[in-house]
Each structure stands twice: as structure tokens, then as C-alpha cells.
């Protein structure tokens, strides 16, 4: 069975409707047919119910909860009965509250740095892996490098502490040789670099999967033709390999930019204490620290709501741009 797993082909045409096709003409007895279809598919509806309840209860119902962005939320009143305050909670956004602006700036800086340093890493690694001749070596290396992706951020942060933290391997070695320890993890100046390094360590291997798949799609006759024409390995990389994965690179880059407002929340919240808010507060931690911890429910819900709306617009916009570049996009089925 495992071989058919590879690419489940959507087979719209091969799967007929779940029962007899209702006639296309609209009859006055439409409600009866509606009732008939409901009756015919009741087993399917029952099967869908538990999943549907979870989707509605935990994905759509919370959208309604966003109304507290327009309320002066009082936790102990019944839901919806807190006083309405209009757009008051949004003032910190429109008036440019310094703490909010700081969170926004930190978020965007982190996105920029990660696009510059995290994004190219899997491309380089995929090219390196792709150039290996031995399939076995390639598989072993892949097995090792994919693994950190499946570890939680708690584990990754703990691992980094053991390596470069105050009493980690690096600093113990320095002390043993009579050198001064270096503070890499509690240092607010290096925080962006630390976060970026952790993301690279955790996810670079995993992110090569898509690039390796794209590389394997490149027609090998292109390489043969190029080498017949006397192209060196470097020139083949430049004129065959990179153009072959250009589409994927553009697509993923645009999607990453569409996700600009989201930067590793768990990763940051775990390490915030050590470096302070000035260096580490991003939009998601702002919502957590002010809302859940600080009790400013309305204001942080307002920030979360605006962030979510802008995020959706950015993703949709990014998808549009991807289409303009002639790529398939993500939300086109």
C-alpha cells in the first residue's frame, strides 16, 4: 500500500456523487429534495459532526471572541456583557504607543534578518546534498539533519543552553583554559542572532525537502547538454540548477514575507526573561504579556485582531503576487 501513498491524485471525476444525482431543473418541491438529500446522506453528516464541531468550536467561535477588542472586558462578567468602548482599545495602535511600536519594530527586524539568513540556508544545503554522488551518504545525512525539526522549542532552547549558555559546554571549556566566558544567551545585543541561529539549527534540514524535490525534477538531459557544450560545474549550477528551482524559491520567499508579522512565539517567550522586553518583545509576546499576564484583555485582543487581519491580507496578497509571477500559489486547488 505504501507506494500508492506517494501522490494521492484527486479524482473528482471518478468519484460520483454519494447517491442518485438530483435532477438539475429547479422544481417547486425544492425543500423536499433538500430533505431527501439530507436523509440520503445522514450517515455522512453524522461522521462529519465531531470534526465539524471541533472546527466550529475552536477555529470559528474564537473569531466571535474578538468582540472583546471593542469592550472593556471584565473577566468575571458573563461573556458579552462587559461595557462597550468602541475603538478605544485600538488607540495604542493608531496613536503609536511606544511599547506597541517597539514590539512591531522587533517583529519586522526579526523577519528581515530571518529572510536574509534563514531563508537561503536550506537552498545551499539542498544544493550540497544534491551534488552528492552516493545515495547512501545522502540518506544518512538527511536522516540526521531532519531530526531537530521534530523537537519542541523547549528542547531546542535547553539544548542551546547546554552548548553556549552560561554553564554550557563552550563556556566551561573557556573557563577550563583560563579564558573569560562569553555571554551568548543572556545578551540582549545578540538576541536576534541567537534566535536566528536556533531557527537555522532546528529547521534548515527539514526545509531542504521541498528544494530537493524540485531539484530532482530538473531534466537530466539539460545537464548533459550543458556539459557537452563545455559548461563547468559552476556554470551548470548557475544556468541549469538555479533556474530550475527559481519558481519554488520565489514562491516560498513570497509566502514567508506574507507571514512577516509572525516570528517564533514559543521560542521567544522561553527566552524573554534572560534578555528583557526591549530586545525581545514581538507582537505575539506583546499580546500574551499584556493580555493573559497583564490583564489588559481588550487592548491585547485589539492588537491580536489587527495583527490577524493584516496577516490574512499579507498572505492573500503574497499569493496574488505568486500568481503574477506565474507560480501556482498555495490556495489554488
Amino acid at each position, binding site marked *: 500500500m505504501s507506494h500508492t*501513498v*506517494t501522490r494521492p491524485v*484527486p479524482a473528482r471525476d471518478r468519484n460520483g456523487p454519494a447517491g442518485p444525482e438530483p435532477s438539475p431543473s429547479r422544481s417547486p418541491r425544492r425543500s423536499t429534495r433538500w430533505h431527501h438529500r439530507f436523509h440520503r446522506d445522514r450517515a455522512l453528516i453524522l461522521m462529519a459532526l465531531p470534526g465539524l464541531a471541533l472546527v466550529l468550536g475552536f477555529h470559528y467561535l474564537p473569531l*466571535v471572541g474578538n468582540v472583546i477588542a471593542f469592550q472593556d472586558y471584565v473577566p468575571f462578567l458573563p461573556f458579552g456583557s462587559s461595557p462597550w468602548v468602541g475603538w478605544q482599545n485600538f488607540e495604542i495602535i493608531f496613536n503609536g504607543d511606544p511599547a506597541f511600536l517597539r514590539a512591531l519594530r522587533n517583529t519586522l527586524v526579526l523577519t528581515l534578518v530571518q529572510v536574509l539568513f534563514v531563508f537561503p540556508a536550506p537552498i545551499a544545503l539542498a544544493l550540497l546534498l544534491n551534488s552528492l554522488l552516493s545515495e547512501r551518504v545522502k540518506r544518512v*545525512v538527511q536522516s540526521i539533519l531532519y*531530526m531537530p525539526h521534530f523537537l519542541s522549542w*523547549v528542547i531546542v532552547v535547553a539544548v542551546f543552553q547546554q552548548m553556549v549558555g552560561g554553564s554550557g559546554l563552550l563556556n566551561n571549556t573557556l573557563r577550563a583554559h583560563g579564558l573569560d566566558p562569553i555571554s551568548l544567551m543572556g545578551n540582549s545585543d545578540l538576541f536576534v542572532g541567537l534566535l536566528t541561529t536556533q531557527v537555522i539549527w532546528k529547521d534548515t534540514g527539514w526545509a531542504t525537502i521541498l528544494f530537493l524535490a524540485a531539484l530532482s525534477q530538473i531534466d537530466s538531459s539539460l545537464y548533459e547538454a550543458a556539459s557537452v557544450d563545455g559548461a563547468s560545474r559552476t556554470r551548470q549550477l548557475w544556468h541549469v540548477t538555479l533556474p530550475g528551482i527559481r519558481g519554488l524559491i520565489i514562491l516560498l520567499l513570497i509566502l514567508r514575507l506574507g507571514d512577516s508579522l509572525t516570528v517564533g512565539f514559543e521560542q521567544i517567550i522561553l527566552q524573554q526573561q534572560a534578555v528583557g522586553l526591549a530586545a525581545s518583545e514581538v507582537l505575539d509576546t506583546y499580546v500574551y504579556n499584556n493580555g493573559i499576564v497583564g490583564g489588559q484583555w481588550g487592548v491585547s485582543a485589539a492588537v491580536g485582531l489587527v495583527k490577524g487581519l493584516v496577516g490574512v491580507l499579507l498572505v492573500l496578497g503574497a499569493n496574488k503576487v505568486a500568481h503574477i509571477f506565474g507560480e501556482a500559489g498555495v490556495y489554488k486547488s
Partner: protein
Amino acid sequence: MPARVLKGIALTVICALVIIPFVGILSTSVASREQVNAAGGFVLLPSSVTLDAYRSIFAGGVVSQAMLVSIGITLVGTAVSLVASTMLAYALSRHGSFGQKPMLMLVLLTLLFSPGMIPNYLVVKEFGLLDSYWALILPTALSGFNVIVLRAFFMGVPAELTDSARIDGAGHLTIFTRIMLPLSKAVLAVIGLFYAVGYWNAFFNALLYMNDSSKWPLQLVLRTYVVNNAELGASDLGATVDVVPPQASVQMAILVVTIVPILIVYPFLQKHFAKGVLTGAVKG
């Protein structure tokens, strides 16, 4: 050939950067007290092996308790997720059935937005789930992405199979349990493992919803006693622990027991995702 040598060196260094931390963590968890103290905490290679640190965390204290919580959440959660996801995906894979299109749209739209932390918290609170284990399961039980992957797979099952079953009088439940599920064991295994890894790794939900520290899962205990370095004394570890092993060893033993389940399922995951289970479905 210098290029080949350079490549070999580069790959060795990259792999070492991933492997060495784990070797060190395992070593520290089994190293003797003298060696841990002499090294100042972290030991790369142990000179002798002792399992005292593991004995202390399995002695029935906070770590043992958290381990039970995590195992329970992962098992129950994965079962709930798989049952709800496969049934919903099957219903969504039957074109033209009652309500199929709007339901599919509802699921697809969840991929586009996330409601936000504050409203999520309020919903869990309004449902009365704060400090309940269900708060660690239900909010993340259904992943729209996984449902879409499963649906794509069910649609790929030849209609001849389901049609002939229907002619023989089989209803949807029979087709689902007798044809669809047996045919999709591999994809069920992958989706199940992804859900399981998600439940095992979940940390923030517990921080958000669980005030009662006796109900904390392993990841939160790991954060408290390893990342935040809270003192872990004999009273936390269990009644039978009279001599507490070095803090560094206990911490690394907690880290090891958190990592090991992932390492156990990892080969299965890798075997299947390498075949493009997920990338194939996304494109479909």
C-alpha cells in the same frame, strides 16, 4: 579532488553540530557526580555510567507525574484527532453529498487565519476547560491541513471499489471502515504520528490553560526545571529519593526522556514523509 574533500568536511561539521549536543546530553545524564562537578555541569563523554539520575526522576515525583500526563494526553489526543479527522475527511471526499461544499470551505478557511491567543483563551475558559486535560487536546485536535491531506487520499481511492460495495448494499460507515481505512494505513500512520508529535511537544497551551502545576505535561516541567533552572530537590523528585543526583544530570535525564519518544517514532515518520505524502497532497 579538493571539492569532494571540502564537501565532506562541510557535511561532517554540519552533522556534528546536530549530533554532538545529544551525545553531551546523554553523557551528562549518566555521568558520575565527581565528573559532573569537575566539568562544571556539562560532560561530553562519561568516564563511568550511573543511572541514578533516571532513578530519581522515575521515583514518583513531579517528573514522573508529568510524564504520565504527557503520555496520556498524547495517546487520547491522537485517538480523538484521528477519529475526528478521518471521518470528516471521508465526508468531505464524497462530492455532491449534503453540505459537502460549505463544510469543505469551512475547513479550508482555517488554513488562512488563526483566531488569536486572547479569543482562544476566552473560548477555552467559557467552555470551563481551564485546568482540565481536555484543554490540552480539544483546541488543537483538528488540523485543517491534515484533514485536507486525508481527503485527497480518500479521493484517490478508485471509485470502482466503493461503487461495487455500494451495489452490494454497503452504507457509508461500512465503506469507510472496511475499504477506506484499510487502504490508507500508511497515510493514517503518518498523520497519526504528526498529531502525536504535536501533542507531545505542545508547551504553550499548557502554560496558557493549566494553572495547577500537578497537571503539567513534561514540556512545561522541562521549561521550569531545565530552561528556567528551578531547583529540583528531593521533595520534588519523590519520597524514595534520599540523595539527589547532581542537578545537571537530573536536568539532562529529563531532557533525554522528553527527546526519546520523538527519536523512537522518527524513523517511521522519515520513511513516509520522504515519499512525499504531504507535498503531494498540498499540490492536489
